């Protein structure tokens, strides 16, 4: 296995991303409970503010990295034939990348 797959880095990414996602979810829930937006426009305006949209982008980056490590681990555990594993990891990578592009498009391009 290549060194880029080192266990420590993947493990650390999973832990750090989990902590960030937890903090972000608490922040979002606190906002919607404490100061709920009154209209779609108000929600959209808040959501698209530069700091919130940046925090949201980091959240999705953390989510995708977390999912990559987690599903990669499941594939490494259960899919042993190399050919199947390469395909499974490739599909996972393509799927997660597509979701990342989609999120970026929603956050910035659509209203850009």
């Amino acid at each position: 296995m290549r060194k880029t797959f080192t266990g420590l880095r993947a493990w650390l990414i999973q832990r750090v991303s989990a902590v960030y996602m937890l903090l972000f979810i608490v922040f979002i829930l606190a906002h919607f409970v404490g100061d709920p937006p009154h209209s779609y426009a108000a929600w959209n305006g808040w959501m698209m503010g530069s700091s919130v949209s940046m925090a949201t982008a980091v959240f999705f980056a953390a989510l995708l990295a977390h999912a990559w490590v987690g599903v990669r681990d499941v594939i490494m555990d259960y899919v042993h034939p190399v050919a199947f594993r390469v395909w499974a990891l490739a599909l996972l990578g393509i799927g997660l990348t597509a979701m990342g592009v989609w999120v970026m498009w929603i956050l910035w391009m659509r209203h850009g």
Partner: protein
Amino acid sequence: MGHVDFVDATRLAAVPIKATRQEATMHFSIFRYNPERDEKPYMQDFHVDLEPTERMLLDAILRIRDFQDDSLTLRKSCREGVCGSDAININGRNGLACITPVRELKEPVELRPLPSFPVIRDLVVDMTQFFKQYHSIKPYLINDEPAPEKERLQSPEDRDKLDGSYECILCACCTSQCPSSWWNPDKFVGPAGLLQAYRFISDSRDRATQERLDDLHDPYRLFRCRTIMNCTEVCPKGLSPSRAIERIRLKMLKVEDDHGGLGIHRVPAIR
């Protein structure tokens, strides 16, 4: 002179023992497989009248072997939880037959060989892979410095750091119950091996700490652990391989610790 109570053995023998659970017949269902004779493994039922002195599961198994079926095969040696030979799966949970009180077990008592290990015969499993992983972590002190005249000394505080890891008897209860070991037994060191890796990583007299950490720094040897913690739950000595694995990860991250030893927990009873 202190007062001493002597027990009159002749009087004791005259007292009829009350009919309690101690005399009840116990029902066992035991995994049988003789590769020279059987096409497939099967479960065989045994009913045993236990003597009051037969208190542990191993006593019951030996009674079956000695009085009912002498082909029943198992490993055992010290019969007091020190050698780790008689680790088996008892009602779905790994443990040592010799220190498991037999009357507390739910009937029929299902006895199987250690899960995921190749069966040699009946309750005896092939532990080659287990010991291969154990040897892979170099379970010995590495120190090339000239040996002192007497011995390599260690402060009491440094010695305390070994508590909770040196007590392992290599019975394989943990590794055999670990799903990560089930999926990758050839690549994942397993909880028993990693506990021993930590034992030498945390030893102040060892000089190969970094090499030991580098050896585990790949996606499989240490990081297949998913923190399921079956290892800690089933360890018949109350050790915590999962905590050792956590400490190794922290050492890799260069997180300084002055935690001392790993500690020993109460062992939940097998039912």
